[in-house]
């Protein structure tokens, strides 16, 4: 498959909006998922370890 020129490649035979629209949104979805997961993980690591046991039992043990 030879496109001839970069312009021809990006034009996708007149279907640029459809083809690139599909791939751009898919890429955005994947990047968003990875970013949200990373944020969820970071929040967890920063949070002080919470305890469901006696109130304050864990906080007393010191630094976070």
């Amino acid at each position, binding site marked *: 498959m030879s496109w001839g020129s970069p312009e021809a490649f990006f034009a996708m035979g007149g279907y640029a909006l459809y083809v690139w629209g599909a791939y751009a*949104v898919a890429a955005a979805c994947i990047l968003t998922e990875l970013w949200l997961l990373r944020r969820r993980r970071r929040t967890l690591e920063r949070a002080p370890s919470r305890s469901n046991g006696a109130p304050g039992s864990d906080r007393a043990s010191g630094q976070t």
Partner: protein
Amino acid sequence: MRLNVWKYASPPAFYRLAGNLAPWFLGLAAALAATGLYIGFFVAPTDFQQGESYRIIFIHVPAAWMSMFIYAVMAFWCAMGVVLNTRLSFMMALALAPTGAMFTFIALWSGALWGKPTWGTWWVWDARLTSELILLFLYIGFLSLHAAIDDTRRADRAAALLALVGVINVPIIYFSVKWWSTLHQGASVSLTRAPTMAATMLVGMLIMSLAAWMYAIGVSLLRARTIMLERESDAEWVRELSAERR
């Protein structure tokens, strides 16, 4: 030494294993996606009927396959959780749901962008499209129901029940193009017939599907790890882990 697979049913062992494996799966996914996209855009020929618009296939079909497959795996873990009462099973199901929902959305979105130039419409209420939309609602329903119940054990069971009832939708999606007259075309790739598409198109599509598999495995392992830490923050092994990091 005999490999004991049951060892990995315990959260601390699974946590370490998942942490070691996830980067490999994600790396493999990136390499396969690069190869698949290269074949899809620079090797595969122009379709004589659809022109270049058919190139949406390389994202659409893998995403649609994964949307159904992840749901089936999620339902499997829910069933395991309900029957065996293992906490890891529910965590796996919960880790898979957002990725499954994402692939369902990509399948619907890329399908709409493919439908417009080829069918002349973004959307029709035919059996294939409607059942795929229901799949998206099932994923969202599963996650919302789980989030709405405070008690984790009850949330796990209630959401699992929803997932198990909804699994009936997966064969409906798959066979919808056979059972009903749909605007969506029938399967181009099946185990019983030779595929009805050019070899390079097929190879590109299959490599992209493998990439989607590797991505789904890698990202859900990472999410399972995070869910484990969230749930077992009081367990001895999590305390030891956070002590190691300091």
